[in-house]
C-alpha cells in the first residue's frame, strides 16, 4: 500500500479577469454601470438610492417602510398585478433600506430586461401607496421588528450601535412596532417625494447582455426619471468613544452571552486600508484566524467567533463578535483581549501574513464568479465611491503589505484600549467574573 503523498504545491493564482464596464452618468444624475457575464441567460440588477435610514429625520419608520410600500402598487397596477407581471417575466424584485440607502434588488431572464426596467421605472415614479397595501406592509414590518428584537444577536447589534454612534442617526434603535402600525400613506408619499430621485443614485446591471446595450436600455427606460430631491448629506458621526466600562445588557436566563467589541476603522481604498484589512483577517477574519483557533478550536467556548468590518457611507467600524456559553463569558473576553494584544505588540510571522493575503485575494475573486455576486460587489464598491480599478488592483495592493505595516496599523486600530465592549447575557451570572477584568455598566434590554 502506498503512503500518503506529500502536500501538493499550489501554483501562482491566475490574474483576475476584470470585466469590461460601461459606466455612464445620465443627465439626471443617475449613474449606470453595466457589465457582461454570460454564465446563465439572466441579468442581475442593483439600484441604490440615497434614501436609507440615515436620511429619515424622524424615528426611522418612513425610511424603513418606504421600500415595501413603493413596490406595493402604482398608478396603473395593484400589488398582485405587479407580482404576476414579475412571474411572467421570470423576474424577482425586492427592496429594503439599509443605514444609508434604499436598495432595489432585481433579477430577470435576459430577454426580459427591458420590461423589467420599465416596471422598476413605474414603481420609482408613480407609486400609489394604496391604503390597504400600506396596512399590510406595516403589519408585516411591525411583526418583523418584534421578532428581530427578541433575537439576542439583534439586541446586541442595537446596543452596540447605540454605544458606537451615540446620538448620530446610525445609533438609532429599530423603530417601535406601535409607531410602525400608526403610519399611513401620507408621510410615505412625502418621504418618497423628498428623497427618491436619480441624483446620487446608481444602477448596476450584470448579465448575459452586452454592457453598451444594457446601458442603452437603462438610459431609455430610466432617463425620464427626474424627481428633484433634497440632497443634503447627513453629518458624519464622531469616532466611537473609548475607555468606557463594559456594557452588560441583562437577559436573565440567557444560555449564551453575545460579546461584541467595536472601534474605528479605515475607509476602503485609503493607503493603510490594505494593511489593516490583513490585520483583521489574521486576527479574526477567517476560519484559520487566531481568534477562531483559540476560542473555538482550542477551547470550545463558541461556535462561530470572528471579526468583521461594517462599512457605512459615512464611516467604517471594526466589530469583534462571539456568542459564548454563559459560564465562559469572562474567560472568552480575556482570550479576545489577549489575541488583540498580540496583534498590537508582536509582528505577524511572514507565512501567517501570506496565508491571510492569499485568503483575502482568493475569496474576493470567488465572490465575483456569479452574476449576482459580481453585481453585489460592484454595487458595494460603487457606493463607496470606488471604481472597477479597486477590484483590478486589489491583489497587488495586498501584496505590498509587510509585517511592519500590519504591526503599525494594528497597534492603533486593534489596541484593546481603542475598542469598546458590549455584551448581552445573564448579568446575575456574568457580571462578577467580567468585573474582575475591568469596570462594568449594567442596563436592561429595551
Amino acid at each position, binding site marked *: 500500500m502506498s503512503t500518503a*503523498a506529500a502536500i501538493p504545491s499550489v501554483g501562482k493564482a491566475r490574474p483576475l479577469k476584470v470585466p469590461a464596464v460601461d459606466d455612464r452618468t445620465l443627465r439626471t444624475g443617475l449613474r449606470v454601470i453595466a457589465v457582461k457575464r454570460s454564465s446563465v441567460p439572466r441579468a442581475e440588477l442593483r439600484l441604490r438610492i440615497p434614501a436609507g435610514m440615515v436620511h429619515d429625520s424622524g424615528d426611522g419608520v418612513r425610511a424603513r417602510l418606504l421600500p415595501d410600500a413603493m413596490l406595493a402598487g402604482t398608478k396603473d397596477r395593484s400589488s398582485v398585478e405587479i407580482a404576476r407581471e414579475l412571474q411572467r417575466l421570470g423576474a424577482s424584485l425586492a427592496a429594503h433600506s439599509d443605514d444609508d440607502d434604499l436598495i432595489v434588488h432585481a433579477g430577470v431572464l435576459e430577454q426580459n430586461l427591458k420590461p423589467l426596467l420599465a416596471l422598476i421605472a413605474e414603481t420609482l415614479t408613480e407609486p400609489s401607496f394604496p391604503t390597504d397595501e400600506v396596512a399590510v406592509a406595516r403589519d408585516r414590518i411591525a411583526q418583523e421588528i418584534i421578532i428581530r428584537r*427578541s433575537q439576542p444577536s439583534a439586541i446586541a447589534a442595537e446596543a452596540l450601535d447605540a454605544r458606537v454612534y451615540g446620538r448620530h442617526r446610525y445609533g438609532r434603535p429599530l423603530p417601535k412596532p406601535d409607531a410602525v402600525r400608526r403610519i399611513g400613506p401620507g408621510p410615505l408619499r412625502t418621504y418618497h417625494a423628498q428623497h427618491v430621485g436619480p441624483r446620487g443614485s446608481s444602477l448596476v446591471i450584470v448579465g448575459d447582455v452586452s454592457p453598451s446595450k444594457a446601458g442603452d436600455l437603462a438610459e431609455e427606460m430610466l432617463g425620464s426619471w427626474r424627481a428633484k430631491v433634497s440632497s443634503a448629506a447627513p453629518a458624519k458621526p464622531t469616532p466611537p468613544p473609548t475607555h468606557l466600562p463594559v456594557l452588560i445588557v441583562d437577559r436573565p436566563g440567557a444560555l449564551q452571552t453575545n460579546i461584541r467589541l467595536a472601534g474605528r476603522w479605515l475607509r476602503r481604498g485609503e493607503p493603510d486600508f490594505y494593511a489593516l484589512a490583513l490585520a483583521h483577517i489574521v486576527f479574526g477574519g477567517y476560519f484559520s484566524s487566531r481568534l477562531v483557533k483559540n476560542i473555538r*478550536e482550542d477551547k470550545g467556548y463558541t461556535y462561530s467567533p470572528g471579526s468583521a468590518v461594517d462599512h457605512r457611507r459615512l464611516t467604517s467600524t471594526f466589530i469583534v463578535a462571539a456568542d459564548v456559553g454563559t459560564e465562559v463569558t469572562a474567560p472568552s473576553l480575556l482570550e479576545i483581549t489577549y489575541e488583540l494584544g498580540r496583534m498590537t505588540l508582536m509582528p505577524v510571522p511572514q507565512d501567517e501574513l501570506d496565508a491571510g493575503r492569499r485568503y483575502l485575494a482568493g475569496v474576493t*475573486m470567488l465572490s465575483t464568479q456569479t452574476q449576482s455576486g459580481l453585481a453585489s460587489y460592484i454595487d458595494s464598491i460603487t457606493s463607496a465611491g470606488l471604481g472597477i480599478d479597486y477590484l483590478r488592483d486589489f491583489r497587488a495592493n495586498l501584496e505590498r503589505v509587510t509585517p511592519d505595516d500590519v504591526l503599525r496599523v494594528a497597534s492603533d486600530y486593534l489596541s484593546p484600549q481603542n475598542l469598546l465592549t458590549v455584551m448581552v447575557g445573564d448579568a446575575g451570572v456574568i457580571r462578577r467574573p467580567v468585573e474582575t477584568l475591568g469596570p462594568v455598566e449594567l442596563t436592561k434590554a429595551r
Partner: protein
Amino acid sequence: MPKTRTTAIPIERTRLDNGLRVVFAPDRSSQAVFVSVYYDVGFRSEPKGKTGFAHLFEHLMFQGSATLEKGMHDSLVTGNGGILNGSTRNDFTNYFEMMPSNALELALFLEADRMRAVRLTPENLQNQVDVVKEEILVNVKNQPYGGFPWLYLPMALFTTFPNAHDAYGDFADLDAATLDDAAEFFDRYYAPANAVLAIAGDVDPDQTATLIEQHFGSIQARPAPPTVDASEAVPSEERRVVHPDPHAPQPAIAVAYRVPDPIAEFDDYAATVLLSSILIEGEASRLYQRLVKNDRIASHVSGDVGLVAGTFEVRGPSMLHLAAWYPGTPDPDRILKAIDEEVASVADGIDAEELDRFRSSYTAEYLGSVDALSQRGMLVAAFEQQRAHAELINEIPSALARVTADDVSRLARAWIQPNRRAVLDVQPGGHA
C-alpha cells in the same frame, strides 16, 4: 407554450477500482473550482441512542488526519485563497472547498487524505462535542423560533426513528459518544464505495482523472453499507404537536404534508413543487393573498417542498411544508381553515395561465441558483449519489414544463389533505 429555457452543463463521470464515483461539471469560463465529496450517510442513517452522531462526526472530519495535524486542512484551504465547509443532511454528509483553480490538486489531496484516515483523539472528540453543543444553543435553544420548522416539523410528521428523531442530537447522546463509535462509523460509512467526488468549474476532466487516481486510487476498498430504507406509511389522521417556545414573542404555525416519492414518482414530485409554489411562493401565491393580504390573519407565510437538504436532494420520504407567523393568541384552527379552503380551491381546478406564471418564475429562479458554482457542484454530487444521474441538473426545467394544471389539482386532492398532515403549534412565552 414558449420554449423551455434550461442549462447545458456538461457532465462527465468515471469510477475508481475502489468504488469511488467521480463526476465532473466543467465550466472553463470560471476561475474557480468547487470540489466536494458526498458520503452516503445522514440523519436517516443514525441508530437509536446516537442522535446527532452524523453531524458530530462531520465536525471530527475537520480535526486532522493520519498525515495532517488539526487545523492544517482549514489553513491549507483558506491560506490558498479558498473557502470550505461541510454539512450533514437527511441523506448525505458533504464536505467541500471552493478554490482558485490553481489549487485544484491541493483540494483533491485534502479530500483523499481524510477519506484515507481521519485522526480521532479524545481531545478532539471532547472539543467538538463542546462546539456542537454551542452550535445547538446558538441555532436552536437560545433563539426565538430556533429549529422552527426544519428541526421540529419532521419530528411531528414522521413516526419511524430514521425520519423522526432529533437530528441535531440529544445532549445526553452527544455526551455519550465514544472514540470507538467514531472509528466504527468511519469504517462503515466513509468507504470510497460509499462516496461521490464531484468537481465543478475550471477543470479539465481528462487531466484531472489522472490526478484523482493518484490521490484516491490507493485508498483501500471497503464494501458500501446497504442504503437506508426510510420509507414509512403516510399518516391516516392529522398529527398535532404543541411546541412551547420560551423565546418566541408571537405564535406561529407550521404544517407539513407527505408528498409523492422524490425519485420513484419524480414527475408527480415535480408537480408538487409547482403546487407548493402556487400555494405559498411570493405575493401572487394563494396563501399570501388569503392569509396576509385579504384576511390579514398572518404577517408572513413561507414554505416549500423538501427537507432541510433541499427540494431535490432527498432520497427518502419528503414533504410539502409551510409556516406562518401571526400576532395575538395562538389560534391554529383559524389559519388551518383558510389553508384548507385554498387547497380545496386548487384541487377543484386551476387556470393554465396561473400555472404558467409560477412555472416561469420557479424556472428563472432555478437558473439563477445554478449560476453559483457551489450550487452546481452540490446538485451534481447529490444527484449522482442518490440517483446515479447528475444530468438531472439540466432536466429540472423540462420536468417542470411537463406539469399540467390537472396534475396540480390531482396532487392537491390526493396528498394535501388534513388527515395526511402534521401541525406544529408554536406557543410563545414561558420563561427564557
